[in-house]
């Protein structure tokens, strides 16, 4: 925050990010200062260690998956644009955006994109399907030690059974969307970003 941050971030960059993600000017500068404070190597990019240094993420059961979501396929560094692009998924959907018609490209924080983010937390191998195994992995991460494998296995089976409509024993993205249709995803996957 303050002059140091904004001199390193050029105005045109801020404008571009604003257009791409929909964040406001002050939000972008604030997040930039957070980005730089995380960037211990001071090379303008964040690596996975930078994220892992955040203690709260370390004890978040899905911490590693969340961190992974920031890094595009195969890369190990993320710059500020990428950082903001990922965070943009969590911007609340404002009312004026809801009326956008289908011709404009879908904003990053649309319901579908939010769901896609969640879907990708499960789907590590990016084959657009949540297999039973991937489901079990995530379940195991989210659950304490008192659950036996059989119990977890049957929970996973039930999950797939409920969602799977085409019988391939895995959950595709469309099935995922369908199963969560009654859930207020827009509210659940949104953060009030401070100005």
């Amino acid at each position, binding site marked *: 925050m303050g002059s140091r941050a904004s001199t390193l971030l050029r105005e045109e960059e801020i404008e571009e990010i604003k257009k791409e993600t929909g964040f406001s000017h002050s939000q972008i500068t604030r*997040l930039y*200062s*957070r980005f730089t*404070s995380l960037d*211990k190597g001071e090379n303008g990019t964040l690596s*996975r*260690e930078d*994220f*892992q*240094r*955040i*203690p*709260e993420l*370390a*004890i*978040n*059961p*899905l*911490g*590693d998956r*969340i961190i992974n979501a920031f890094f595009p396929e195969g890369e*190990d560094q993320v710059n500020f644009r990428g950082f903001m692009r990922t965070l943009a998924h*969590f911007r609340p959907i404002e009312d004026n955006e809801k009326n956008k018609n289908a011709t404009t490209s879908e904003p990053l924080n649309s319901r579908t994109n939010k769901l896609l983010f*969640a879907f990708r*937390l499960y789907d590590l191998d990016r084959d657009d399907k949540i297999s*039973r*195994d991937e489901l079990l*992995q995530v*379940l*195991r*991460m*989210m*659950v*304490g*030690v*008192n*659950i036996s*494998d059989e*119990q977890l296995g*049957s*929970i996973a*089976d*039930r*999950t797939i*059974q*409920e*969602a799977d409509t085409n019988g391939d*024993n895995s959950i595709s993205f469309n099935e*995922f969307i369908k199963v*969560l249709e*009654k*859930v207020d*995803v827009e509210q*659940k*996957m*949104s*953060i*009030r*970003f*401070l100005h």
Partner: protein
Amino acid sequence: STFFGSFFSFHSAVLFTLVAVFSLLDGSAGEIPPKPAGGVTIVPPVQPDGGPQAYPEAGKSNLPVFTMDYLRIQIPFEITLWVLLASFAKIGFNVYHKITVWVPETCLLISIGLIVGGIMHSVHEEPPAVLSSNVFFLYMLPPIVLDSGYFLPTRPFFENVLWFAVVGTLWNSIGIGMSLFAICQIEAFGLQDLNLQENLLFATIISAVDPVAVLSVFEDVSVNEQLYIVVFGECLFNDAVTVVLYNMFSFVADMPVVEPVDVFLGVARFFVVGLGGMGFGILFGFVAAFTTRFTSKVREIEPLFIFMYSYLAYLVAELFAISSIMAIVTCALTMKYYVEENVSQRSCTTIRHVVKMLGSMSETLIFFFLGVVTITTDHEWNWAYILFTLLFAFVWRGLGVLVLTQIINPFRTIPFNMKDQFGLAYGGLRGAISFALAFTLPDTIGRKPLFVTATIVIILFTVFVQGISIRPLIEFINVRRTNRNLDTINVEIHCRLMEHTIAGIEDLCGQWSHFYWKDKFMKFNNRILRRILIRDSRAESSIVALYKKLELQNAMEILDTVSGDISAAPSIVSLNEEKKTSAKPKRKFLAADLRNMHNILSKNMYKIRQRTVAFTGKHSLPNDTHSREILIRRHASIRRSLRPGSFQTSAHSCRPILDSNFLPPEQLSHLDAQETMSEVAFPSRRSRFGKPTRSSSKAMMPLRRLDTLKEAPSVDALDKDRPEDGRTRPGMSRINSSYSDSRVPASRRHFSSSSENDNGSADNFRNVHHETEEEEQPQLSSPPPGWAAEPSDSSTQNPLLRRPQWNPKKM
């Protein structure tokens, strides 16, 4: 339950004996001539009936072989007996776990107190006159408050506990006070001599909520974890607020007429008192931290400083009539952070245990007295006042919770729903502080007995009625919710996933509102404060602090519990099998199964933001098991999920790791741990603990043996479980081993050159990692059993401490 029966009867026998002995020896009223109970001989020269004696006839002054002088030891003896009695009671409850599940501990304590009081009353004894104002405020209150302050969770505290505690208490006191005053105006009740100040004072006393019982209920039944923290923090903090208000109001109550300028002065005084208390606390906290910087040679008395300084802060604040509670709480908070870095691990544990012990004991005693006093004092009963008090207390608390949640909810990650609010409101049990404050009201207040009676009634009502009924009620609500719940398992799981994600992203963005200030403060802290106050003030990254907080050097115990779980993690091997058996027939799930699943999930899924130190209750030490589980599991899965890759790029940065692993601790001071990767942080932490002056707990000693070959067997065990892995046994010569990974010979040599001691786990795991790059499959199935199968040479088994080489880049 026969065991239970016999145990309890044993206990009652002991209790009875103690009480009988007690009543005999307490010679305050002494109408009934004391009857000797078995074996107790009476002061000479009375000829005793039985028991040991060796008396010649009276008259000759021979050397007395056996004498007894009760009066000399009377006071400490009685105090000890009381404490022992209360502690026996506590043991008794916890024998039969089912009881403590349904009946909060405070209920039981009060009941025992009632029984003892009944006994004493029937033998016409007075309770020992220990509960005077001075004794309470100077001896019994500080341990309780120190206990609360020391274990206060700071972050949620600043987030919203402050609201509930301060504003909530104010709201309650003023609301109840006003309404009671209104009632007093009604002639029929005969209460007109109670003026506004006295009513306000009384209202303050009974608005101190002590939601201890609720915490244990919340733990078992799935409740929003944020709620848990708010309730806990409120409980801690509003003791402080209440006493401050009490002091203020009691001052005001003495004044015959209250003018507007007095109200203004009162508010001003509130701030002076509060802020002054905090200022004193911080001052003493810093002095204590500074002192511990120099205590490395006198480890045995380190805990003493903590207690002396906090007590000093308390007393000095009392001297100046500012809020001693705020002083001691702030002192504990400030001190804790710096002191826990300076003192040895053992001192740290000692401090925590003693603080808990003293606080627990103090509170136990107060509840015990409550029971006794209930029976033995003269009560003044006024139906109207008491019933209206109950009513208003309930109503105002409910309203307060409602209003406050409306204000706070928009700022929260996960807002409080109606069930949470109900829990908050209904769970407002009154506790020890209320009783003590009422009992020690100055006698200048005319209707003091009425106040005491009313306070006792409200405490008993809330503790017994609300305390016992809250659990069934919450379960009822939960059950209803689940039954009406058309949520599928999918929704439940995915929603929890989303909640974790949001919590993670928020933490990542540093979303709590004063991140800017926190960051500035941390910089200031690192640059200045830590240099002054901490002995080795290397700037420490917060991840290191996290591991320290979780005391992960004791991970061995956790491994025992977690190992079953780790082995349950699915592996890619099973994935292959899965694909083959995809033609499995679909399972049928009954409604009962579903309900079961929902139950399992709601009880076992991790709550959001398991804090670094999770709290299970006021009477027990903080419990970190969930966080540790998560961390351990994470480490295991990271090891499993390594991908081939950027090992070369990390080569240059690996050097500091090795250096720091194996250099003697003194040389590490030049390493600025904060600047480099987290791997560095671990070794620096480890080696700090490896210092001789630090704890000598088993897990840490062998850390220094990492340089030696002892580590090898443990990793060998790991490798043994991987039969397909015909690789290098990570032995001593692993550097030169026929390592067929041609990708990184350069880096490996690089390692060997940087440290000739490089036969510790550092390289073990590099090997392991590379082996996994080649063949993921066999390796994946093994680490879990590997952990479980490790030799029980427990000291070296600390996987987390062998960890630093987990190279996150490989993720």
